């Protein structure tokens, strides 16, 4: 079991580092997905370990929410790209003090 959890942690860390370091919105988005899936892996692993379905149900919820989020997120990224000809998250910094 530990291997799965370690793998999940590694994937999550890769995703988190990606979110923090990459500027391209699409890559950041993919890293977010990576983090979500790392969580899913952990949930499923724990479900197997405990012998019940709670974790698996949670994983399904995460997938559903992620799908919806992808739809909205990609639409926003596309709109921003159309108006600014850029997909860099650092360029979209107007909403501030």
């Amino acid at each position, binding site marked *: 079991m530990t291997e799965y959890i370690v793998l999940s942690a590694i994937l999550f860390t890769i995703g*988190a580092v990606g979110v*923090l*370091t990459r500027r391209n919105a699409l890559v950041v988005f993919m890293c977010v997905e990576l983090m979500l899936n790392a969580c899913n892996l952990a949930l499923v692993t724990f479900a197997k370990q405990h012998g019940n379905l709670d974790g698996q149900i949670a994983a399904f919820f995460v997938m559903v929410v992620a799908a919806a989020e992808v739809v909205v997120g990609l639409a926003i990224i596309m709109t921003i790209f159309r108006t600014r000809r850029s997909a860099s*998250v*650092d360029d979209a*910094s107007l*909403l*501030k*003090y």
Partner: protein
Amino acid sequence: MLSLSEEIPLVEPTGADGAFSLLWLVIALPLAGAAILLIGGALFPQALKVWGHVLGTLLPIGSFVISLVLFVQLMGREEGDRQVVQHLYDFIQVGDLDVGMDLLYDPLTSLFLLLITGVGSLIHVYSIGYMEHDERRPRFFGYLNLFVAAMLLLVMSENYLGLFIGWEGVGLASYLLIGFWQHKHSAAAAAKKAFVINRVGDMGLSTAIMLAFVTFGSTSFTVISASAGAAEQHVMTAFGLLLLLGACGKSAQVPLQAWLLDAMEGPTPVSALIHAATMVTAGVYLIVRSNFIFELTDTAQTVVVIVATVTLLWGAIIGCAKDDIKKALAGSTMSQIGYMMLGAGLGTAGYAFAIFHLLTHGFFKANMFLGAGSVMHGMNDDVDMRHYGALRKMLPVTFFTFAIGYLAIIGVPPFSGFWSKDKIIETALVENPVVGICALLGAGITGFYMTRLMLMTFFTKERWEKGVHPHESPKLMTIPLMVLAALSALGGFLLAGDWIVGWLEPVVGHAEHHEPPLPVIVITLITIGVVAIGVAAAFVLVGQREVPREAPQDVSFATRAARADLYGDAINDGLVVGPSRQLTSGLVTFDRSVVDGLFSGGATVVAGVGILLRRVQNGFVRSYAVSILAGVLLVVLALLAVNLA
């Protein structure tokens, strides 16, 4: 002390019946006049210009007629039965507290009713002539009627609360009338000054009323006179001193005397009615009416005597230096009220003489004030005696009547003032030689300043302004002068056979006769001698010299002090006005710096922190992500720490 209380007569009135059921009408008539003249002034001003003054004069005369009828009725009763009370309506009923609007009619009140309505009516008649050319004459009469109604309530109420309403009413009327010519800044300021200084006295009276509520559960004279003997000594002393404070304010006694001289800014009939004959004597009434309290407290009585003695000299000294004829008379009024207060402070032996002097003073001082008004009328409203001189030929009636008032006030027998002042001096000498000698000295100074006033006005050389043509006043003004002069001359007969002493006995009690240290005739002769010295001094200092038209400036310190009202205003400024201004500005500074600083300072700190913190919202998504990650790590570490610990 308690053994004395048996001698203090109780207030035990019987119900009003027969003619006495008209008691309420005495107040109602002038009150109706005030309502019609003051409210009607806005509704039908033209009609009031024609008959407003007639209405305003007839109503007090009506009150006078009723007072006269009531007086005769009261004379017809048995001596023990001369207290009548009329219940008008329930005024305040809360819990145990039950204050009725009750009118008390007894020998003391009866004399006051005659004085107020009698002298008041004469002054109303006089005012018709005096105020003839004034645009606002109906309003003037409205105020005068309001004053008469309030003063009548003051002396007729059966409890302190009703008295207080009248007390405040006369204060209001006095304020309105001093400031009647409000376009003059000095008049408006004088009105305000009178009002404010009176507030200090009123505070004393209202506190006394509260004390009465607490101590006796009532403010009725009947209840208090019955239970005063059982109350504690220090409560009675406090009660007496608080009443004295009220009396000092209303009667212009030291230390609340400063307003009276400025009050002369009002029209002269007002000075005669309110600031000489009636209102300013309310303090004397208050003390005589409260005799059942003052008889139980030696301390308060002593303080009354001290205040009175200081005031009678204070006022007399001021009167010596004033060139304004009305202010000289005002100083004299202050001094004469000092005599009355002295009589009232001497206890049972003096009450009747205080009231006697109050009545005679009401006659001769009203007479002289109206005479001064008549002189001013003939001199184009000039009040400076240095511009008068030799007016006796021009104003013969005014001169003659004024002279009778003069003889009365300095105490020449057989004029009224002689009888009343002599009795007070005699009683004072019996009680306390020092006070008696001060009173004697005051009589001498009275002789001086009144002779000075007479000489400067009616004798010496003509010093008139150019274009002034002195002339006698119209009949409407001289007839009241003649009536008052007759009363000033004959008022002394009230004392014939000790009538007034016997008449007031049911109210103030019977005085044990004490032999004075010297035979009465000797005291009388000494008094006349002292007065003669004062008169002679005035003849030498004023009559034998040229009176300069401008007041000389290189005068002694005493004269300068007297001209400045013995620095009464400076003392008030230094002791009260200055410190309270400093206190106020200190409080304002404290409020602005400390209190406001606390609140606005807190707000400034929060705003500053906000300005710093908003930098966190920099718009870079990745920096937000770092904050979230940091937060998550913190939570995880905290959970681990808790679980592993």
